[in-house]
């Protein structure tokens, strides 16, 4: 699943521009992800200048929760 780190997002809109399926929208309140439309192509993840977008798997959740 695509995850956004709000602290790193500068709302530049680049991820929206490289998303070919329209799974991201930038509102005045910030970036919104439409998970149902996301194909996990990772274009937005590769583009993001700060690494604010990442793909997280359920395994990531388990390992991160086991770390904490």
């Amino acid at each position, binding site marked *: 699943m695509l995850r956004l780190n709000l602290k790193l997002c*500068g*709302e530049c809109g*680049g991820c929206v*521009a490289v998303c070919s399926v329209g799974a991201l929208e930038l509102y005045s309140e910030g970036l919104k992800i439409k998970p149902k439309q996301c194909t996990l192509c990772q274009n937005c993840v590769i*583009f993001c*200048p*700060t690494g604010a977008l990442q793909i997280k798997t359920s395994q990531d959740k388990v390992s991160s929760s086991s770390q904490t």
Partner: protein
Amino acid sequence: MAAKTLAEKGVKVLLLEKHPEIGVPLSCAEAISVSGLDRFVIPDPEWISSQIHKMLLVSPSNEKLTVHHPQAGFVLNRKIFDKRLAQKAASLGACVRVNSCAVGLLSLNKDGFCGVKVLEDGKEKEYGAKAILGADGVESWVARWAGIDSSLRLDQTESSAQYLLRDVEVEPDRMEFYLGRSVAPGGYAWVFPKSDHTANVGLAITPDRSPKKAKEFLDQFVQKRFSSFRKIEFTMGCIPTFNRKKSLVKKNVLLVGDAGRLVESLSGAGISNALLSGKIAGEVVSQFVKQGGYSFSTLKRYEDRLLREKGRELRFYSYCRAIFLKMTDEDFDAVVYFLKEYLGDRTITAIQPIELVKTILKSNRRLLPLLRHLIW
């Protein structure tokens, strides 16, 4: 610029800004050539941060070339510049609404889209319109709503990051450009002075060729270039590249500026083209509205006029970018060495970009094969 042009011509115009303040947040390095600015507006010291007379180009092996070019350009204060443009449009009769985010176009009929759906103070509102101009930047949803495929491939973008730094040692009339795979792969780093101790310091990289994020490269560059600094602001952005295959008009929707990908693909410069496209779009839409707003062929003149004036140059810089992306650090070094000899201590008053690029490529046997990218 489009709203100002339309208002000047007496057309009823509504300018929607999704943010609470025009010009904020900033996503721009703010540099523009003198000729790119003064044909549209009279430069005003209020929104000119610095005047540029020199350029420093630094190769990957730290070879330095200084080009003296009096009156080469400006570094703007876009936060003020954009506001003043909007105020000018408003003083001419345009209605300017901030905190007003377009969320869709109103249904299509034979006359095109009949308006926009907008979110204002949490409430949905509808505004009717004879023509709609998408000036909504690189992420343009207006383009998508109109059915124009505006998504960019990764290789058609530059991922950029920039700090506004204070207490830095810079020459207030000199722009600096840094090349090299370790500095900014597929792009370059810049230092654009805003005063004798403040500068926009940023870089752009081609994201699918880079092992690290733009911000990581920028932090590394800033540490290396400046012995002391204070970070005032951080901005990031997407610089699109021009794509002549993408349409700028669909029915009664027109795309201007970054929304139309009207950017010089080599330098990433977009302010001047945004002003030009806004002006032409304003003139064409005014004609369209005065004719009753039914003839879409009138609107197509926007694209025709713009590409007649700028198409060749925009295509040229696309080819230059293709060459640039194929160049190695050794090639960049060779170019800087060559230019040092070629330009010497001469003061430049005008640059013929096409001739200069051809001369550079012919200067080095390694670069010669890249000339084929310039044949169009």
